[in-house]
């Protein structure tokens, strides 16, 4: 059951999106998320939609995979929508007892719903098309300027990649410990929430002990292999921008500029969204 946990849900495929430099994808995701909060009208919405589906099509990742990420935040989205509908002042459409639904509220709810959906889809597209190693490499490289203010960028990236390597091991170990405790009569499934939480203690204690032991061993092994931090380190797979990366940046900025232009020039605040 613990095996179901997936982290860094990479979807292997050969596409132009997969082959892009991770930095392009990180910057692109950031720009896309910002652009989602720029549009206030149908034109912007259409542009953002077209761009997203164009990328999904290019990436060869099935849409169902990308939609999977939505499950986790569905409740959050519904609550956000309800709040928007109920608490936005404006032209009233329905007024029952103390509940007042306004036209502006519905509009804001629909936009917020779309924004959150696209936000999750956009970020999922990035994690689905980039291996965790490349992702941490990309972050390390993008954050490199922060080293000037003594932010431990290399160390954080190293920690992330080690964590990614050890998660499956620790998951396996948890499974083993649980089975060992179950074999001796431990019960993890019955009782109320508190009882169940309490029964996790005999799993967590040995798990922590073993994690610390592993960490000690690993530190020793890294030292034995001359690890001395990021300084003077070379890379087997350094990040190098290719031709497609330049093109991708161009496409990204054109899209972003278009979104800004749409916001400035096509800003017709009273155009109803779904026809009237």
């Amino acid at each position, binding site marked *: 059951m613990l095996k179901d946990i997936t982290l860094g849900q990479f979807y292997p495929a050969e596409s132009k999106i997969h082959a892009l430099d991770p930095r392009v994808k990180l910057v692109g995701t950031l720009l896309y998320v910002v652009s989602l909060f720029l549009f206030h009208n149908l034109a912007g919405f259409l542009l953002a939609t077209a761009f997203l589906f164009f990328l999904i099509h290019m990436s060869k990742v099935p849409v169902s995979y990308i939609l999977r990420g939505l499950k986790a935040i569905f409740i959050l989205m519904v609550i956000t929508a309800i709040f928007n509908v109920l608490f936005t002042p404006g032209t009233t459409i329905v007024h029952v007892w103390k509940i007042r639904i306004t036209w502006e509220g519905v509009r804001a709810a629909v936009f917020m719903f779309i924004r959150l959906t696209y936000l999750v889809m956009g970020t999922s597209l990035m994690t689905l098309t980039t291996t965790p190693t490349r992702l941490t490499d990309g972050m390390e490289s993008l954050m490199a300027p922060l080293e000037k203010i003594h932010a431990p960028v290399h160390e954080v990236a190293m920690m992330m990649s080690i964590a990614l390597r050890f998660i499956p091991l620790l998951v396996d170990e948890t499974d083993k410990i649980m089975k060992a405790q179950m074999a001796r009569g431990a019960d993890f499934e019955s009782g109320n929430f508190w009882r169940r939480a309490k029964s996790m203690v005999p799993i967590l204690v040995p798990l922590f002990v073993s994690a610390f032991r592993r960490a000690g061993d690993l530190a020793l092994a890294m030292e034995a*292999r001359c690890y001395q931090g990021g300084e003077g380190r*070379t890379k087997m797979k350094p990040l190098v921008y290719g031709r497609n990366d330049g093109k991708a940046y161009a496409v990204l900025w054109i899209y972003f500029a278009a979104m800004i232009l749409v916001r400035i020039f096509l800003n017709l605040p009273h155009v109803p969204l779904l026809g009237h």
Partner: protein
Amino acid sequence: MGIIKTNHVSYDYVRVNDEGVEEEKERALEDVSIDVYPGSFVAILGANGSGKSTLARHLNALLAPSEGTVWVDGMDTSKEENVFPVRREAGMVFQNPDNQIIAGIVEEDVAFGPENIGVPTKDIWKRVEEALEKTGMAAYRMHSPNRLSGGQKQRVAIAGTLAMHPKCIILDEPTAMLDPGGRREVIETVAELNEKEGVTVVLITHYMEEVVYADHVFVMQDGKLAMEGPPREIFSKVEELQKYKLGVPQITLLAHELRKSGLDIPEGILSEEELAEAICRLR
């Protein structure tokens, strides 16, 4: 002088309390002097708690001796500036295969050492390829270490040290957590490296069977050097070895028992073939 030399080395594990005052002292090594010649295959044998792992950690500057000196390729390991050069010369493979693999892909793990010592990217690729080739793991270069067997993981770890182009490799009980198949796989890889590539090997183990490949054996007991000599000589002293809680290989034991019961069989038999030959010669 050999590539690794220890001169009257002693080491104390010191327990310090919160105020930094010494509370307890435990002597783990006592007056150990060994000499390892370039290109040789040396085994260090000992039961649990005999100090063999502590000795191993001295050989690539993970520990510095409390008394005495350790030289690796002429460098004194207790000098701060020698620490990294020493680790480059003397690669180390540890016991637990899972806790020494750092990256999520085999080839990236092998590259970890060369990356740390600043080898240019192009050379890293060459070294990784070579190291994987030599350990027979080339077919697995894109695999995740989590899916490999214990023996394969240890071979990746060996490749990881090889890629740093060390003069010698120290293996600290590399087979203790493996099944018999994995153990053979690892030891054969190591023996081949020693033979074909001339890499000096220091193998620390408590399995007597693995010692047959060695040119020279040190036996440790309670932090001290108890016996020393070529494997055949060591194995001929069955009773003494048993005193050090070391079991001799079954075939050696059988030969020893036969000899004790009056048959004219030489001491220090190491393989089935040898014993068969000795028995045939009896008639």
